[in-house]
């Protein structure tokens, strides 16, 4: 059974509103693929279509090799989903929630079910609270329990909708570490919906930025930064600014712009290709007598790239669905 996701022209209309507009993408086995976009971009609607909760208006998709329209039961069997709301039964205990959903996902063998529930609750450090009603749990604990529930039947494909929303930094990190482990060590395919750039940057091998239902751009976080927010710059901090050093750097063929920050004795250099030309720049500065204190490559942040896109700033090739 494949553990990939393929969407082709996936569209969802609610009346005249186009919530998802001809999305096409493929997620490979073991990949963490991010759907990044502002509120109302169509992320949750996309996940609901792929999880066979709602049907597409147009287009098609396959999840784990199963068609989402023709084989919805099979899709739901192989997918684990963390919904936008944790959707936990607050009047039941943690164990009862896990037990109910384990049964719902087909774990009928009592011993296997008990072992699996214990394994997950212990992993999420909820075992000691297994007999407490979920209503008494903190937000972070509920989120962890909801993720545990999504994993109870060992799905190969996971849909995680805003997994760190509302969590404190410590809990967010725990969830991110878990997602990384699921992808890297357990080779699960993960579709991650988020509007948190930190999550997308740290977790996703590729990100699709969507806005108003449309795919704006797809690529790795590095590619998106380079493509949208521009090339990284080289920041060289000197012990003392020297005009001769500045002139030498400006005259280099591959240097486009040199900005000088006199307050910090810093040169901010825009290059054609940071990767290959940084050693030459450093060598030139040293030969010209410059005393280098530190060298940094400043990458434009994914946040800058993202904000530029969703606020509609000019982006090269933004009209086409650009895949990098």
């Amino acid at each position: 059974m494949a553990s990939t996701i393929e969407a082709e022209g996936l569209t969802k209309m609610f009346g005249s509103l186009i919530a998802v507009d001809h999305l096409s993408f493929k997620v490979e086995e073991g990949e963490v693929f991010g759907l990044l976009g502002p509120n109302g971009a169509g992320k949750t609607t996309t996940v609901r279509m792929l999880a066979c909760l709602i049907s597409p208006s147009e287009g098609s998709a396959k999840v784990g090799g199963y068609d989402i329209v023709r084989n919805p039961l099979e899709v739901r069997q192989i997918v684990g989903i963390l919904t936008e709301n944790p959707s936990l039964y607050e009047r039941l205990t943690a164990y009862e929630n896990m037990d109910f959903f384990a049964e719902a996902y087909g774990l009928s063998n009592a011993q296997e079910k008990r072992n699996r529930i214990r394994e997950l609750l212990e992993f999420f450090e909820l075992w000691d609270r297994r007999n407490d009603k979920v209503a008494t749990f903190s937000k972070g604990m509920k989120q962890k329990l909801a993720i545990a529930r999504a994993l109870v039947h060992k799905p190969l494909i996971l849909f995680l909708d805003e997994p760190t929303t509302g969590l404190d930094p410590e809990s967010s990190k725990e969830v991110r570490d878990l997602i990384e482990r699921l992808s890297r060590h357990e080779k699960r395919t993960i579709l991650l919906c988020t509007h948190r750039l930190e999550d997308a940057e740290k977790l996703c091998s590729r990100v699709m930025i969507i806005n108003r239902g449309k795919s704006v751009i797809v690529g790795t976080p590095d590619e998106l930064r380079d493509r949208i927010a521009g090339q990284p710059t080289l920041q060289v901090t000197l012990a003392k600014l020297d005009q001769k050093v500045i002139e030498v750097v400006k005259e280099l063929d591959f240097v486009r712009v040199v900005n000088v920050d006199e307050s910090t004795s810093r040169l901010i250099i825009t290059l054609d290709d940071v990767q290959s030309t940084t050693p030459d720049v450093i060598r030139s500065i040293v030969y010209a007598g410059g005393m280098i204190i530190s060298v940094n490559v400043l990458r434009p942040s994914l946040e800058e790239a993202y904000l530029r896109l969703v606020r509609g700033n000019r982006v090269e090739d933004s009209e086409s669905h650009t895949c990098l």
Partner: protein
Amino acid sequence: MFSVLLPVLIILIPSLASVPGTTLSGLETMIRNLPKHVQDELAGMTEQQVMIYIMSLYFFAPFFLIIPLMASSVIAADSFAGEKERKTIEALLATPISDSELFLGKILVSFIPSMTITVISFIIYSIVVDSLSSTIFNGRLLLPNLVWILLIFGVAPTVALASIGLTVMISAKVKGFREAQQISVILLIPILALVFGQVTGAIIFEPIMVAALIGLFAIIDSVVFKIGVKLFKREEILSKLA
């Protein structure tokens, strides 16, 4: 209350039949519509015995159809509407439980406790009636009899399933629990018509009539279930999330 207070009152009230001015005139229509063999049996009874016999075996019989409806209405109305309000429905819909399994599950979660209450109520009612009336009937036990067995174990479950099925369907369509409960009250009307019919003597629960009711409601149950599953749409339920 049905099971204890009512039979107590039923057995005590007939003692007033011996007070001048009280008669069985209010039950004449019902007595006239009883099967011939029952009328023949009543002819050999005292007024007190007739009163107890009619009231405990016929007059209050249809009220036991209301018990499962009332006991199940809240749970059935809450089945999908409550989950929508509490935002727990999405994870349930995301499971590989089929539409028919979901629908049936929601019906059973109302049906089982309501029928349990009904059967227990009937057992208590029978014990109270028999305890209080056995001396009046010279040791004869009035309950259970064939009609009551068919009523409790045949009519009540089939009526309950039809009502619960319709209420669960409504629950899946509306936004919230209150709406579902208010609309489902309408379903009591046909049952109240049966109750009224029996109380006034227009309808008498005798074995053939009861068997016909079981058959009729069994067909209705089947139709309700099929339509309920057909109309069940996960997308529509999610679109009505509060």
